[in-house]
């Protein structure tokens, strides 16, 4: 039997196994709290915060996977990222509802205009 065990398979996009913080002397501290706060603001207030949380969360998770960021904040970062995704989805739904409402208003105005024009032509 070999003295060395087989290295575990890595998920796609991870070029080398995660390292401990400070192992390469380049590890950044995590920003999990900031990402989580942005994500929560994205859900309860403005979806734009959610977009920022999603982007920052994605970056930080990637950095943690390749060992460039302190992985102890992974839970907070993931939570913030998910809140950011929810906030962004809510923003998109809100925009879709607004556009449908605007189309409805345009349709009503067009129908009213056509009816008024038809009434004027058909009058005595």
């Amino acid at each position, binding site marked *: 039997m070999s003295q060395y065990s087989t290295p575990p398979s890595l998920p796609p996009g991870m070029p080398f196994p995660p390292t401990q913080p400070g192992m390469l*002397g*380049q*590890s*950044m*501290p*995590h*920003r999990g*709290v*900031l990402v*989580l*706060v*942005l994500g929560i*603001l994205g859900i*309860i*207030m*403005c*979806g*734009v*915060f*959610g*977009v920022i949380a*999603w*982007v*920052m*969360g*994605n*970056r*930080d998770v*990637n950095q943690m996977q390749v060992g*460039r960021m302190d992985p102890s904040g992974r839970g907070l970062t993931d939570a913030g990222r998910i809140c950011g*995704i929810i906030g*962004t*989805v*809510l*923003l*998109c739904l*809100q*925009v*879709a509802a*607004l*556009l449908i409402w*605007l189309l409805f*208003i345009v349709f009503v105005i067009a129908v009213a205009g056509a009816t008024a024009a038809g009434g004027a032509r058909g009058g005595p």
Partner: protein
Amino acid sequence: MISGRAIVHRLHEHGVSTGAMLGVSAWAVAVLAAMLVERFAGQEVTLCVFKRVTGSPCPMCGSTRATALLARGDVGAAAVMNPLFVAVVAAAIVWGVWMIVRARTARRSRAARGAWMSGPWAAAALLVVVGINWAYVLWRGN
């Protein structure tokens, strides 16, 4: 010349997922639609769900009107409408320029980049800034 595909690729490299791009695009479409309705129908459109539900403005309320003012080049009036929004737009522009410049210049060490945003104090500072802006927006009645 930088192609659109190259910009999207670079944004993906920086963690900007397609969904996030869609979110920003959706928001831009909503702001544009609201500006058009306001201009041609004279009706003010409230995009903010928070304001619709609670009746009070959220910290970013006034962003649509600030965008319209920015589009006209009136930065001062936009900053009076919503200072935080104008600061976010300025930061986004600086970040975009920095992203392009960084690709052509020497990189700083990865440990130095973004380290100032770590720790609970950064989140506390964000909450303080958002809170001050919210107080201002409430006082102004956006």
